[in-house]
C-alpha cells in the first residue's frame, strides 16, 4: 500500500500540482527531510496540500502527513479513503476541541513515529484575499511535546486563485512557495506563536505581488 501511495504521489499528484501551480519554490534548503518535524503554512485552498506534497524530494515524501479536519475529509467514504491512504492525512477532530478529548493525539503519534506533519494553523481555508487569519495554538502544543522538532514556516502565495474555496474548476496560475528557517520551541506558547506569526508575515513580505481583485 505504501509504495502505491509513493508512486501516486510522484507520478500523479506531483505533475498535477506542478501543472496547476508552477511550484515556484524559494528557500528549499530549509525544508525538513526527516521527522519528527512540523511544517506550518498559510491556507487558502485545497491546492496548498497538493503543492506541499509535491515540493518534497521523493526520499522524504512518504514521511509527509498533512493534518486535516476529520469532520470535513472523512465524512465521505471515497474522499475519506483518498485522504487517508493517498494524501496520508493525520485526522484532527476540530469539533471536539475543548471537549476534553485529546484531538492532537494522532498528530503526536505521527511525530513520535518520525513523520513530518504539515499543519495549517489558521484552522481553515481563507478567502484568497492574501490576509492571514489568527493562528490557532495547536501547533504550539505539538512543538511543546516535541521541543527538538523544527517548525518550518511556509508562505504559499496564490493557491487561492488556482482553486478558491467553493470553486470546483482549478485554473493554472503560478504559486510562490516561500520556505523560511525553522522556528524553535523556547518554552512559552505565546512567544512561540508570535515567532511563528512573524516568520510567516516576513515570508509573505518577500512574495511577489498578488494582483487579484
Amino acid at each position: 500500500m505504501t509504495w502505491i501511495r509513493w508512486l501516486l504521489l510522484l507520478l500523479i499528484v506531483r505533475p498535477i500540482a506542478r501543472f496547476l501551480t508552477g511550484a515556484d519554490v524559494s528557500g528549499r534548503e530549509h525544508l525538513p527531510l526527516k521527522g519528527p518535524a512540523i511544517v506550518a503554512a498559510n491556507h487558502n485552498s485545497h491546492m496548498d496540500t497538493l503543492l506541499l506534497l509535491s515540493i518534497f524530494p521523493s526520499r522524504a515524501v512518504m514521511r509527509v502527513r498533512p493534518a486535516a479536519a476529520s469532520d470535513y475529509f472523512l465524512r465521505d467514504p471515497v474522499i475519506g479513503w483518498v485522504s487517508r491512504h493517498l494524501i496520508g492525512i493525520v485526522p484532527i477532530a476540530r469539533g471536539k476541541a475543548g471537549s476534553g478529548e485529546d484531538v492532537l493525539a494522532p498528530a503526536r503519534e505521527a511525530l513520535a513515529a518520525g513523520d513530518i506533519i504539515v499543519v495549517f494553523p489558521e484552522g481553515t481555508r481563507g478567502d484568497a484575499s492574501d490576509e492571514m487569519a489568527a493562528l490557532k495554538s495547536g501547533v504550539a502544543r505539538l512543538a511543546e511535546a516535541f521541543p527538538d522538532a523544527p517548525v518550518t514556516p511556509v508562505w504559499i502565495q496564490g493557491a487561492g486563485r488556482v482553486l478558491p474555496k467553493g470553486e470546483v474548476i482549478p485554473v493554472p496560475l503560478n504559486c510562490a512557495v516561500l520556505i523560511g528557517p525553522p522556528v524553535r520551541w523556547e518554552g512559552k506558547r505565546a512567544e512561540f506563536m508570535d515567532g511563528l506569526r512573524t516568520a510567516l508575515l516576513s515570508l509573505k513580505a518577500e512574495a511577489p505581488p498578488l494582483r487579484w481583485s
Partner: protein
Amino acid sequence: MDIIRLIEDFHNAQPLALLWGLGGILALLVLGSLVAAMLTATRPSKDYRELRQRMSSWWVMVLLLAAALLAGWQATLALFAVVSFIALREFLSLAPTRREDRLIILGCYLTIPVSYAFVAADIYGIYLVIIPVYAFLILPWLMAVIGQTKGYLSSVALFHWGLMTCVYNIGYAAFLMRTPADQAPAGAAGLVFFLLVATEFNDVAQYVWGKLFGRHKIIPKVSPNKTWEGFLGGWASTAALIWFVGPLFLPLGGIGLATLAVVLPVAGFAGDVTMSAIKRDIGVKDTSHLIPGHGGILDRIDSLTFTAPLYFHLLAWFSLAKF
C-alpha cells in the same frame, strides 16, 4: 548492427550545417562550464554560484532544444507549446486579474492547443488569424457576458497582450519547422536553430558590450543597466553574425540578408525592453524562479517574442515560397 545503421541513417538525414552548429554550441557550453569551474577553483573568495547555475541551466535548455530540433517538427512543436504554456502562466500570474475572469484565464490557455493544432495541421492561413482576430474577439465577448465591467478594458488588453506574445509570436518558431527541406540550406530545423542562436547571441552580446564599455544609459527609466554601448555593440556583433554565418542556414542573400542583419538585433532589444517595462509596472525583477540563474521562462524568451515573427516574415517575404 541495426543500431549502428540506424544511427548512421539518422546522422545522414540531418543537414551538415545543423550538426556543426549544434556541435559549436556544445563546444561553447563546455568552454563556459570550464571557465566557471576554473573561476570557482582559483578565486575561492568570490561567489560564483549564480554563474554555475546559469551554465547548468544553459546546458538543460540547449540539450532540450537540440533534441527537439533533431527529432523533428512534432517534438519541436510540443516543446514550443510547453514554452508558450509556462510563459503565459507566468504572465497571467503576475498581471493584475479579476476574480470574475478565472474561466477566461482557462480560455486563454485553451488557445495554446488550438493555435498549435493549426501548426500541426500545417494550415498557415488560419494560424495567422486564429489568435489575433478570433481569440481577440471571442474572449472580450465572453467577458462581457460574465458582466463585470469594472476594469473591463484593461483586462481585455492584458489577456490579448499575453496571448500575442506568449502563444502567437512564439508559435512562429514552431511554424518555421514546417518549411519544406528543399527551401532552406540546412532544412527547417536549421532555420529555427539560427533564429534561436541569433536571438540569444544578441542578448549575450549586448550584455557583454555593456559590461565592458557601458557608459551612457539608453533607457534608464525602464532598464537602468542597459547602455548605448551595449546596444550598439550587440547590434553590430549580431548583424555580423547574421551576415557571415547566416548563409549557412538561411535561404537569403543580398538585400534580404542585410535587412535581417539590421533589424533582428533591434527587435531583440525591443522585446527585452518591453518585457522590462511590464515587469517594472508589476513590481517584480524576475517572472519566476523556474530557470536557476536566469529567472522565469518569460525573462529568457522576452527577445524571442519579438524576433520570431519578424524573422519568419522576412524569410517569407524574401525567400520561402510556401508562406
